[in-house]
């Protein structure tokens, strides 16, 4: 019964290996966990190139936005580009959350990634406007500081300046609202 022993040995060696490969098949190579959530958000200081339409959220063009000045508020930082198709899909959702939660001190910012400002302005116009301001990121230095893979990616920063959550890919109003509200709730109940 030599073949039985051979089968048992092959099974004993092969099955764990197959199990390992099967486990690998369940992983999404695009969903790479970020080390940032729970840590202090990298600081940035960037110039506004698109002011935003909302009376509460808007910032004048040329104004410098500093993350340090936004302590005490929930900040939503969305990296986008005019050449990014998925960014079109999330635009309405981001705009909705921005206006819905503006009264609670939630401030949304767009950060342009590897794109020109005129292209960005044109894109916003094409999309029917944007309630929140957008800032430029020359040389993608802030994007690299946030460990960006591509666009869109969105970071929710809590009032203490820590990264609460990172969204890879387009956000939905429901998903973003859930995270923003949980951060607001955590602030309300110290």
């Amino acid at each position, binding site marked *: 019964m030599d073949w039985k022993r051979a089968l048992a040995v092959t099974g004993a060696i092969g099955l764990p290996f197959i199990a390992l490969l099967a486990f690998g098949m369940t992983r999404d190579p695009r969903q790479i966990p970020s080390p940032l959530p729970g840590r202090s958000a*990298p600081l940035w200081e960037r110039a506004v190139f698109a002011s935003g339409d909302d009376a509460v959220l808007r910032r004048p063009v040329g104004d410098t936005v500093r993350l340090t000045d936004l302590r005490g508020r929930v900040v939503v930082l969305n990296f986008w580009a005019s050449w990014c198709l998925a960014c079109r899909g999330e635009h309405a959702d981001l705009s909705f959350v921005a206006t819905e939660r503006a009264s609670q001190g939630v401030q949304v910012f767009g950060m342009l990634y*590897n794109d020109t400002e005129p292209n960005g302005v044109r894109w916003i116009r094409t999309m029917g406007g944007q309630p929140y301001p957008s800032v430029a990121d020359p040389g993608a230095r802030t994007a690299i*500081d946030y460990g960006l893979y591509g666009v869109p990616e969105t970071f929710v920063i809590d009032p203490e300046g820590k990264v609460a959550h990172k969204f890879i890919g387009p956000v939905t109003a429901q998903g973003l609202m859930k995270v923003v509200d949980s951060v607001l709730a955590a602030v309300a109940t110290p």
Partner: protein
Amino acid sequence: MILPRVALLVLLAVQPVVPPPGADTVLDRRVRGVAQRLRCPVCQGESIQESPAELAVQMKGVVREQLAEGKSEREVMDYFLAKYGDWILLEPRAEGLNLVVYWVPVIFLAIGGVTLFMAVRKWTRPDAVVANTDTADTEVDAS
């Protein structure tokens, strides 16, 4: 007579050592050393040294800036690890679950080697069992 020579010597002595254009500087080599070990976030299969992606080029710029500021290679690697996590390393660290990647091929090679050795030994061994059986058969025939 001597003065112009002295002046020339002084001039040569104080002239800064500038590498010829296109030459590989120490900084270039250090940048390459770090860039070869970092994975490109866009291509994901090659280093930022080889990748033509815009983000990879920008990341290489960050490597150069930080090294020029006086940071060590280790500090620059740690910066990218803090931003992107272990995934950014083209060669995974030999610790924790990563050890599977390093040891599975070695274990399989060892098992394969032992199996092959035993099989070859079995195939090349003189067939003693069969010879004994033949002898036994002869004895039975004789009785």
